[in-house]
């Protein structure tokens, strides 16, 4: 890959930026360039670690982040996305997810689903899915997993040969809506749109050296 400086100096920018959104979407493999689904977990939480361990056992590439998503974005994720968009899944708190949702837009990725895991006063966890209605049964499976729900969520997120595509437009996560469950964690997937979809980010991503 050309460095940005080399790219600029070569004067190649304009010529290389003719890629269409369709081409960007075609390039948007469901999995990362090396064929793996990228998994991101928040290592601050036991649930995040359990999710990561389960995902790793299933062959996923797992990145652990902490409170500052910025370093991970700048050093790891954005450089990878510059090779083309791919699907991400993970278990984090709400704020990092909100950041990822906004940042990933520039690379043609949108949120497929979110599952909020809210701790109940009785110590249990309530699982609520937002997104593709076809995944509704997942929350029951997570409830059935009891205390092992994080590993169960990893299994669901990494199951199947193909990850789901975004089927409905989701607004960015509303952190205030979770005012009564500020301790919630979220399982989520952010992925490229279907091939040929018009999405600003996919087009803009094609311009980035």
């Amino acid at each position: 890959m050309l460095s940005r400086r080399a790219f600029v100096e070569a004067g190649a920018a304009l010529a290389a930026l003719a890629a269409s959104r369709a081409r960007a979407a075609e390039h948007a493999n469901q999995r990362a360039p090396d064929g793996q689904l990228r998994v991101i977990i928040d290592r601050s939480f036991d649930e995040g670690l359990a999710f990561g361990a389960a995902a790793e056992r299933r062959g996923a590439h797992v990145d652990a982040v902490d409170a500052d998503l910025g370093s991970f974005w700048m050093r790891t994720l954005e450089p990878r996305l510059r090779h083309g968009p791919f699907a991400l899944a993970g278990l984090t708190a709400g704020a990092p997810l909100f950041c990822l949702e906004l940042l990933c837009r520039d690379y043609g990725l949108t949120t497929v689903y979110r599952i909020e895991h809210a701790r109940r006063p009785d110590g249990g966890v309530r699982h609520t899915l937002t997104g593709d209605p076809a995944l509704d049964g997942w929350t029951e499976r997570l409830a059935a997993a009891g205390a092992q729900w994080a590993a169960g969520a990893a299994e669901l997120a990494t199951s199947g040969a193909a990850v789901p595509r975004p089927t409905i437009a989701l607004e960015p996560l509303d952190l205030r809506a979770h005012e009564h469950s500020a301790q919630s964690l979220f399982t989520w997937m952010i992925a490229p749109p279907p091939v040929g979809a018009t999405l600003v980010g996919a087009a803009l991503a094609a311009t980035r050296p």
Partner: protein
Amino acid sequence: MPNPPPGLSQRDFNTALGRIEEVVGREWVFKSDADVALYRDAYSPLWGESEERFASAAVAPISVEEIRAVVRIANEYRLPLYPISTGRNLTYGGSAPVYSGSVVLDLKRMNRILDVNERDKTCLVEPGVSYFDMYRHLRTNNIRLWIDTADPGWGGLIGNALDRGGGYTGIDYRDHFDAHCGMEVVLANGDLVRLGMGASPQAKTWQLFKYGLGPWLDGIFSQSNFGIVTKMGFWLMEEPEAALQVSVTVPKRRDVVPLLDGLHSLMCAHTIPSQTTVASPIMNGSADPELVRLRTSGGTASDADWDRYTAAQGRPFWSSAFIYYGAQKVIAAQWEHTKDRLASIAGVQFRETASYTFPLSDGQAEAVPDKPRLGIPSLNLFSSRNAPGAQPSEGHLDFSPMIPPRGEELIALADTTGKIYGDLGLIPTFVGGLMFHPRTMICFHAVPTYRNAADNQRTRRLFETLVRTCTDRGWPIYRIHAHFQALGMQMFGFNDGALHRLHETLKDAIDPNGVVSPGRYSIWPKHLRGRA
């Protein structure tokens, strides 16, 4: 097809977009609902209400020549454009246009770092260059210069500077507009100008000397709508030999008076080089009823009341944080002098919180807890998870009054705004002030936004009351969310709004068709005045 902006027929709108497609390519004009929704203000105080502002479409040019062509077409149809760079300035309006129906001119594709001159310590960038981009460029190329980053660091150098954002490092860098040197602008008529020394094509000093010859016009392109800035130069800070981060705490509420007097003197003398924060560990977001009573009393709680409460908490009332950059011997002398200057405050405590020698390895940079003070962009403001019982901090608007750096003013402001929050049944959010600028203090207050109309109506009432009351007390804002810009400009109404009249006189001269960001900072073109 999307709906046209008000006053523009669907046919003309379609024709204009079609012609723009011919300029930038069809794939760079975004018209679907899903695409346009991406420019929605995620923290809008009007979320879901009829007055919420939306774009009608978006266009992403790649070059100055494409922008010029788009602007010329926009003039033919009076098509309103709303330029954005990265568009992530959420607490001030994000990428949603001020005038609903505008076409967002998305400049993210123009993301080239055109020059970094290590010897001159300058750079020249396009609007799409983010703080992340520039930091990564400097690290990757082993260039021993620092950026001064906004916090959070996902914004762009040009957008943040034009909105007069601030950072944390040295005085020459952290006022981001003041740190720029040289600018290129596409005017609303499609003409292209370079400001400062850049107007002299052979000049070797475009990024070194700000003024050029004749009237200095750069300022009129900040917080305005007179043109589209396509290049800006910035001064960069030379990486120092070392840095020492410190904190100074004082125990009592009224101690902030001598503390701020001392800190201000030290900053004016350049003994303290960095942004200086003065915040209260006591005035936090806790719902403790006694604290809430004190905070919302409107100043009737005495210093003695506050000091009793503070003593029971076992914490100092005020804590100041700042950082020294430079040679270690010089830093040691600066720190000693600072302690001498503040030692007369009873109970003052001095603490060294972190020290660094440069360059940092990637691992060391990663481990820095307060990254923006070392010019490292961060998203740490979006903390991982809220503390038990704490209110979520996102989304919110920033209410940003400016006060003189005097302790009496800081206390009076806290009393005034605390009562306003309390009267609306809210817990005050104000914790302290930041000295981005050398002789004023910005006192950010988080004003919560929601995705329901009832709560947002209360938010808007709170925000408007804060603006009006604080202006009356002599503390107007330095920057304001797009929805409240008309209100903000009313607060600068000397001589029956002479400043606003001047702004609109300029608008009429520079952009008679009103195609660039109509309504931004309440500057409307003639045909929309009193109608938008």
